């Protein structure tokens, strides 16, 4: 099993509580999650990335336990080595585009310099058309430029898995096509497992070896693309 | 009526008791006491603080008050006398008999009130200059802001000796030991006066008189002050 996830988590805000129940076993490398707004998609990714501690259950990726309540395992986000594109980008406001992208490449106590480089950073700057605004700060970017910067930042460090939360939502159709191809290319080359959240049918068609539908905090069904190896538990 | 009395810090304990006794004897009279270093008190008055009676720890400060017109020369009178002493920590091994002994190598730090502003330091400096010891001892001097700080340093053993008033030395009998009394060519005399600006002259004069009275002097004696 590439993905073996079985967790639940209750979130509370005042009177209201939201119950997340995520079960997912799949041998597919590319999983797409669809679902209405507020279904629990983003929260699921946060749990997988280690930013939200599930109440019970386990998260295994490619045989590696990232979280296991019973066994007392809870890897720090740092140890999970995932690439995560946040739905609202979470760009570092004090660093320019180039530094944001290069951020994860250097482990020291200093931020990369304003002209931080390396072939990898340059590659993604060009691939995503960010070269002209490489030295601009996030506050000086357009919405789509921010999203591309965040996506490049998630991809550049060759993570063990990709968690992408609506990666193309702020882009125009032409750019979407280009970036989808870039992502497709990268994923095939590295054979890295990927979960992608989207509202876009074309994303689902391109990346959904398996498509999951979430609703009210639970995975509902595997309407299409599912194969024998995929078991979606309830 | 109510009067405000500005008095030197070294008079704190004695004046508190005197004010109580005064108010008991003169119902309706009320005394508000304001303590600080004599120099601070002078400055407050100079800038227009509403003070009725001023008691300083030395003649020089009162002289300045007279010069600045804050006090009429005729209104001032001396009301107490003090003695300058050299004290050492209670457990000190030093046997000091007189000022020349302070030049011993074993004496490395001496607390002296800052001669520029603190009366007790001024007296100490006069005494040392008269004995031609000031240049020798200047490097050992730790300047303090008032007599109580000197006393505290001695009590804690931070300095080897210190110049204080007899009234202060008497406050910490277990912690400091009096080595010797310092002979002075001018006596340590505390002057008091009704201020020129006093709006309650009658009450102010009555308080000054009370200090000079038998009852007032008895209380001062209790705290170690001598008669003028």
């Amino acid at each position, binding site marked *: 099993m590439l993905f073996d996830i079985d967790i639940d988590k209750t979130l509370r805000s005042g009177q209201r509580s939201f119950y997340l129940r995520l079960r997912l076993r799949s041998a597919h490398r590319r999983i797409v999650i669809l679902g209405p707004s507020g279904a629990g998609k983003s929260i699921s990714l946060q749990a997988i990335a280690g930013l939200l501690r599930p109440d019970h259950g386990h998260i295994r990726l490619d045989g590696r336990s990232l979280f296991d309540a019973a066994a007392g395992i809870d890897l720090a986000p740092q140890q999970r080595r995932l690439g995560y594109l946040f739905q609202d980008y979470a760009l570092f406001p004090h660093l320019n585009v180039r530094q944001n992208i290069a951020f994860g490449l250097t482990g020291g106590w200093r931020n990369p310099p304003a002209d931080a480089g390396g072939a990898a950073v340059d590659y993604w700057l060009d691939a995503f058309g960010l070269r002209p605004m490489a030295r601009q700060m996030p506050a000086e970017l357009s919405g789509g430029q921010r999203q591309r910067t965040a996506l490049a930042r998630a991809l550049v460090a060759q993570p063990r898995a990709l968690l992408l939360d609506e990666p193309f939502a702020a882009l125009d159709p032409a750019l979407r096509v280009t970036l989808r191809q870039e992502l497709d290319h990268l994923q095939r080359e590295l054979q890295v497992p990927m979960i992608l959240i989207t509202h876009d049918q074309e994303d689902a068609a391109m990346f959904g070896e398996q498509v999951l539908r979430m609703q009210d905090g639970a995975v509902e069904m595997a309407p299409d693309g599912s194969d024998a190896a995929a078991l979606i538990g309830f | 009526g109510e009067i*405000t009395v*500005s008095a030197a*810090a070294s008079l*704190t*304990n004695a004046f508190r008791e005197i004010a109580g006794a005064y108010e008991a004897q003169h119902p309706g009279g009320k005394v*508000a*006491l*304001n*303590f*600080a270093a004599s120099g*601070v008190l002078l*400055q*407050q008055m*100079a*800038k*227009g*603080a*509403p003070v009725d009676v001023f008691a300083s720890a030395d003649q020089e400060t009162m002289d300045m008050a007279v010069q600045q017109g804050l006090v009429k020369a005729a209104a001032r009178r001396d009301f107490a006398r003090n003695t300058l002493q050299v004290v050492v920590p209670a457990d000190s091994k030093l046997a000091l008999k007189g000022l020349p002994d302070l030049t011993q190598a074993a004496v490395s730090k001496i607390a002296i009130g800052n001669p520029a502003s603190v009366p007790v330091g001024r007296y100490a400096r006069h005494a040392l200059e008269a004995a031609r010891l000031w240049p020798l001892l200047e490097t050992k001097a730790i300047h303090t802001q*008032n007599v*109580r*700080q000197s*006393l*505290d340093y001695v009590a804690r053993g931070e300095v080897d000796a210190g110049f204080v008033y007899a009234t202060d030395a008497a*406050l*910490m009998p277990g912690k400091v030991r009096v080595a010797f009394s310092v002979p002075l060519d001018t006596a340590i005399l505390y002057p008091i006066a009704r201020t020129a600006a006093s709006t309650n002259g009658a009450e102010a004069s009555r308080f000054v008189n009370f200090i000079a009275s038998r009852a007032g002097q008895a209380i001062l004696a209790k705290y170690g002050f001598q008669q003028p």
Partner: protein
Amino acid sequence: MDAAWIALALSLKVAAWATAINLVFGVGIGFLLARRRFPGRDLLDTLLTLPMVLPPTVLGYYLLVLIGRRGWLGAWLQEHFGINLIFTWQAAVLAAAIVAFPLVFKPARAAFEAVDGQLEQAARVLGISEMAIFFRVSLPLAWRGILAGLLLAFARALGEFGATLMVAGSIPGKTQTLSVAVYEAVQAGQDGLANLLVLITSTVCVAVLLAAGWLAPGHSGRRA
């Protein structure tokens, strides 16, 4: 020990007034420095920090020169209103307020500068007046930083004695605040009394600061 309670009450009154004054002026000036750009802004900011750098006694001395009966402000007050501030608790308030002023305006400025300008823009577009934006957006979002400054200012005002001693004197029951009393007890060698007074001051201060921290609206101000 009654004297201690009177001194405590006086201290609290003085510190509360000083803090209230700084709430208005410190926050106001902090906001202006954060939002308005004008030549000499940094210089003004620094000049306003000077009350920190002067020893309180010296500050008190200059204050005395200013508001004393012979100071130009003091003379004016005396002449027109018959007010003499020296040796009054109001003078203690003034001294404490000036000494603590930089503690409020500087953190306030920094806090206002950290507020996302886009939120104020959004409020503008929604038709909210600049004044209302200040109270409804900028102030709540900067509140944590401002509160930190206010609590520091309150503590500082409670502990102030150098400038207070100069302009308000140390008259028990009238202008002798707790910290002046502590100072005098230490000077008088009354260690026991000093320790007791310090204990009272510290306990009261801790209680007030804790209460303020809990009661004050504590918007966490995280971005959505």
